[in-house]
């Protein structure tokens, strides 16, 4: 069989198999609208919190007012019993509490340090940090005003009565709105591309195995590889051409870098999937393996969870999956707008995955439709006891 035979047979199989078509084309389409849905508003809004005011002073009221002025936060009430606040957190009516201790005003007036406390529901990182950030900002602003006021009282000229000797300006780059969807969805899309392709390939190749037919021989398998790579490439263009634009996520990539990296990624996924497919004996096995592995793989990519926090061995092993380089590279090109030169490392790793996978396929791919290099199990074989 020729390369062309393998290519054509793969495409006609994909288009004729409802299950494969669903996975390889419809799933990407469906998920691309479904996945961004929770993050439509991009930022955490209406973080409900309670103030526990044990001081009941003008200063404590001033601080509560300042914290509540933050657009992200929503004050649910002011109480003077910490147990009320605790119960509210247990019922998840609020996600955090601002506690102003007794003597807050007195300590401030005496020029002492007068700490307050923010307690969040430990389980929710985003809302916790929103409450903490806004409270810190309000407390700092109030403290700064207080210091300037005091220094003026001490007789310092106004230009020297500054709150702190230096200022820190924090500038978010690449995702200036710091949107959550903008952060997570572009990476999930890469994961989606890889997993749907691998599962779709498993479905097709598994069916060939079951029915002892399909392309055979090295040339034909190269055609199969190219056919699946083309499918992955088309899906990548849809994701990074249409979805990012439609969802209005940051996108700054140059067209040619994007096309080039998409091709490299598609080839790597197809080769990796073909090598993996040598394991498949049945049509359904791909989904069984690949669906539950997606979440661990995503957290190993070094993106939602810093690679610096991974155990050293995993920090190396994670590069074996195309998704790791893919996520890093596509985020660089699309969201950060870097030149192709900045994703050379990822590109080389993907090419390495492609070559090694193809070598495995070259060695083990079936040479004839009936005699395979690996034992084949028919569907239903062994599924039922001899009645």
């Amino acid at each position, binding site marked *: 069989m020729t390369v062309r035979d393998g290519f054509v047979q793969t495409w006609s199989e994909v288009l004729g198999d409802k299950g494969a078509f*669903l996975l390889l084309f419809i799933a990407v389409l469906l998920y691309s609208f479904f996945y961004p*849905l*929770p*993050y*439509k*508003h991009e*930022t*955490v*809004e209406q973080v409900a919190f309670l103030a526990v005011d044990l001081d009941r002073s003008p200063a404590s009221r001033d601080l509560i007012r300042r914290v509540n002025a933050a657009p992200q936060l929503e004050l649910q009430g002011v109480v003077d019993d910490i147990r009320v*606040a*605790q119960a509210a*957190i*247990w*019922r998840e009516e609020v996600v955090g509490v601002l506690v102003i201790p007794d003597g807050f005003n007195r300590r*401030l007036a005496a020029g002492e340090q007068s*700490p307050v*406390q923010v*307690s969040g*529901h*430990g*389980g*929710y*990182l*985003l809302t916790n940090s929103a409450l903490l950030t806004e409270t810190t900002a309000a407390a700092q602003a109030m*403290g700064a005003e207080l210091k300037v006021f005091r220094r003026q009282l001490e007789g310092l000229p106004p230009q020297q009565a500054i709150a702190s*000797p*230096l*200022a*820190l*300006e924090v*500038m*978010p*780059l690449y*995702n*200036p709105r710091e949107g959550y969807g903008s*952060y997570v969805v572009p990476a999930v899309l890469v994961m989606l591309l890889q997993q749907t392709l691998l599962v779709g390939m498993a479905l097709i190749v598994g069916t060939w195995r079951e029915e002892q037919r399909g392309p055979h021989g090295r040339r034909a398998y190269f055609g199969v590889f190219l056919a699946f790579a083309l499918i992955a490439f088309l899906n990548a263009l849809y994701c990074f051409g249409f979805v990012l634009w439609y969802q209005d996520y940051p996108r700054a990539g140059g067209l040619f870098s994007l096309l080039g990296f998409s091709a490299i990624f598609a080839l790597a996924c197809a080769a990796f999937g073909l090598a993996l497919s040598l394991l498949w004996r049945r*049509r*359904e096995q791909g989904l069984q*393996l690949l669906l*539950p*592995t997606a*979440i*661990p793989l995503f*957290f*190993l990519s070094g993106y939602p*969870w*810093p690679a610096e926090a*991974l*155990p050293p061995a995993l920090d190396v092993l994670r590069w074996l999956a195309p998704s790791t380089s893919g996520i*890093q590279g596509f985020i*660089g090109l699309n*969201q950060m707008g*870097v030149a192709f030169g*900045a994703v050379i490392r990822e590109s080389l790793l993907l090419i390495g995955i492609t070559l090694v996978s193809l070598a495995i396929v070259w060695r083990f791919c079936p040479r004839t439709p009936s005699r395979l290099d690996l034992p084949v*199990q028919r569907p*239903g074989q*062994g*599924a*039922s*006891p001899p009645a």
Partner: protein
Amino acid sequence: MQQPGFFAVVAREWRHLLRDRSDAFFVFGLPLLLGLLLVWTFASATPRGLPVLVLDQDGSHESRQLTRLIDAAPGVSVAQRTPIAGQAWEALETRQVYGVVHIPRGFTDELVAGRRPTVQFQHNAQYATHSAQLRRDVQMAVATFSTAVELTAEQRQGRPNPYALDAAQPIPVASETLFNESLDYQRFLAAALWPAVLQMVLMITAVAAVGRELRDGTAQRWLDVAGGGVTTAVVAKLLPYAVFYFVLSVGMLLWLSLGRSIPVAGSVWVLVVGLALLVAAGLSLGLLAVALVRNYRMALSVTAFYTAPAFAFAGHAFPLASMPVGAQVWAALLPLTYWLPLQNQQWLAGAPASYALGLLGALALYVLIPLVLGLLLLRRRGFSPEAWGAR
């Protein structure tokens, strides 16, 4: 041959798994491996600091001091210090560093003159997790530096200043949980992700166990072995799996709470009951999926669509209250949405057991409703031969 009934079905399923190594792997080996992988992923006792670059265009004693303070912060490590802006950009773009601290030329002069110089911190906000940690630590380091400068300035002016340190930060904000623990909640991710992965494994297992019989046309034999009752046939098939996944999940709970010291602040028993319901709910939903479409492959696709984005919708990473209504409705249809608050409330927050009743009730509904619907559908249409063999 064995008497038809419950144990005959159990024995039949067991014989299948002994014969079919790949099915046995997907059912027993894979979840075990994934559980271990998750624990390993979040196991690092001392995460290395995230790399930043200091663009030091001042090159003074003070700028070096600030650099040292930043490097000393627990979550940050200064990977590079350079006066050349081009190098800073290159390191950012190749993602060797996630942020650049820019100390401008003339920084020390302005500091000494009291002209309040500005230090810029540019961080890669696309890497949100990294950014949050960096911003916190860099802010802290700069504040420490600022306090030190103030102290020396005030002491130089000869003021008797017992409150110098206090005066530098009039209102410090302490961040604590109400529940008197001080653990790193990010580690808790392993505990939050495991149920999401488990849900997929559970549904797949139920779909595979029932779907296999439909695909291979052995459904009638399965029913015969059970003695003719659909309920017996289904329960006997799924119960051993339920026991295995329950034991596995309790093992995970014990390992994370005792082994990795995330102590259970609330009721262990509520968590154990909740886990039993969560496991049963996953299997019930798998049964419903396969009874609904009566096609092994399609039921797996349905499972994928339902479970793959579940973690995103369940409100743990991104709060439910900030989602659009459509997403909230979908979230309400996922057992995970009830399990994760239960886990937070009982494991971390130490709530009294009574607070968990509503959530346990919701989980119980996700066991009962899909189970009853699935059994009804299966009885009605599952055993008609025209439903078999669809791929």
